[in-house]
């Protein structure tokens, strides 16, 4: 029997991380758009702020790959 648990676990780890990042980025993106509309000079900072929640998806990715590699 093929063990589906591991890929599913990895999928959840990655998927939820991505989802979280998406939610956070959508808000930050909206706020960033608002800020840039008023202060275009903030563009650089906004890009970085938008990138901050990407930690989540990256950690998700790390965990997913560790699950796949270590448990397979």
């Amino acid at each position, binding site marked *: 029997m093929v063990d589906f648990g591991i890929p599913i676990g990895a999928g959840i780890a990655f998927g939820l991380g991505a989802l979280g990042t998406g939610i956070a980025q959508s808000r930050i993106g909206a706020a960033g758009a608002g800020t840039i509309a008023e202060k275009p000079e903030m563009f650089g900072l906004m890009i970085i702020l938008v990138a901050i929640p990407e930690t989540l998806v990256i950690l998700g990715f790390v965990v997913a*790959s560790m699950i796949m590699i270590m448990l397979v």
Partner: protein
Amino acid sequence: MLQKMLKIQVLGPKKDLHNVLDVLYAKGTVHIEDASAPSSPGEVTLKRMTADQVGDINVAYSKIGGILLTLPKTKIDEKIVAHTYANLKAMSHDNLLIHVNSVIDDLEVATKTLAKEKSDLELSLINLGRYEKIIDKIRPLETSMPKLEGFEVTVLLIQKEFKDVIDIIRDALAEITKRQFELLSAELDETTIAAVTIFNKRFSDQVHSYFFNQNVNEVRLPPEYLGKSFNEIFSLIEERKISSMKEIARLDAELEKISSKWYTELNALHRILGERAEELSIFSKIGQTEYTFMLAGWIPKKSLKETRDALKEGFGGRVIVNEPALTPEEMAEAPTFYDNPRIVKPFEFLMCVVSPAKSTEYDPSPLMAIFLPLFFGIMVGDIGYGLIITAFALIMKWKFSDRDWLQHLMNVLILGAIWAIIFGWLYGEFLGDLGEHMGWIEPKTFFGVTWNRMEAIVPFLILSFAIGVFHVFLGLVLGIVNAWTEMSCKRHVDKAKKHICEKSGMIIVITGLILVILGIGLALPSTIVTTGAALIIVAIPLIFYGGGAFGTFEIMSTVTNILSYSRIMAIGMASVILAVVANKLGGMMEVALVGLIIAALLHTLNLILAMFSPFLHSLRLHLVEFDSKFYQGGGKMYKPFKKENGGKST
């Protein structure tokens, strides 16, 4: 490195002021500050210098600005503007003023009347809409009314809770008009009832004075609509609306005409007047007494001597350069002068995107110049990509040679690409696994690990964390250094002490944590674990003293910061996997050409991602994880009084 700045005061007799300014201007070393603002209470406030022409220039400047605002924007040809600008610039001050005033005379009245007419029409349009709404609502009532000559129609609005009033009105009207009237009512909306009455004009005064004192409102319409039927009024309003809009269009066209003729010139004028006003404003920063002037400013330590010599040469002992003793608080006010080697310049730019450093803190840009491209290289790590990125950056630099920010960004990319090539060699990657496939290169082996990114995931992760620990510790150490410098400033001593405690505590805690984890994870001798635990216990009071309860939360966030460096591995791996997928998909295709195209497309996509994502994330690692440990920012930039800044004296 940041240059050490010194505050200077230049004092001299007033008659030399212009020449002194010329000398300073030629030197271009002094960042002039407002000398007339008292720097501490109780100090004598010096009167401000005023240049005579400032008023005229400012008036003209704002008038031109006002005219520009009323005119519709027209596309301007930058070349012609530059040409006009150059012509104007050549004019003498007085001639320029005469010219400007003649332009203002030509345009001001015309544009103002047009704009006024237009806004009047726009206002009346809005009101027409308001009237139209109510007329549209009561229109249906009219059809059921008899049309009689010599009779007057009045519409009443009654709030629903007073609807009984209708009966009272009916009775009263019957009495006044001797039953020669008609009254109809209908609901207008949720809160209002409309009642239409029609009665002989003879009774008009009596009826109206009766209404005056009732809790009802008469519908008010502009006088020109009196005595007309509602349908008529409705169509009249429609007509008015259309004609008003036509009129507005006509006015717009006229403004457009003026604009097309003048916009370029006005733009150039506005620009040059703005510059002149800015130039003259330098005078308002100079303090004066009856016979002397005082100019205050900051100067980099290294250029103090040459400036002093230049002044001495020109004016002998008449002009004095004074260095007031500064408290550390005042030193903190100094402007920031990044003075780094050329290779670091792009990173200064990146720092300024966020917030320029304060002159007293450690300038992170040289460190950034080392680590940012390094991180970028570790993440991209592909000879092929590195080469392509370099080529791309060079092309961009050549194409947009006039955009400063792009130049800076591309320089950063090139530096990163160089590291990418180096790491690509280490990983044995050329366009993913293509290089290895073709047998050109292969992953190197160090420390018993073959650095093939597809396989050596765990070593990579550990490497990332190690980089994280090192980088965060470096940040903490710099934080301690900064706090140490701050100690000289009395006001901040307490705060600085706490910072030092907190940061050193943090280093100890993290070290302890690492020892514990390593000890348990690798089953090392128990002494290591106990040492780690002891370190943690020792450090916690330190942190608690330095940062309070929140300080202990900081431990968590520092740990997360270190974990966050795992993105170095993660992004790198994502990039290499995509590259490998591109090669595999390409190779799977039956037709070589299709395979090639598919591979090329995927590689391009990966390349775009590779330029953007690793760059952004290494920047982020610096600004968020690294800088937060020591960097405050909020400095003001050093802007010496010289030509680029338009600071020419007149």
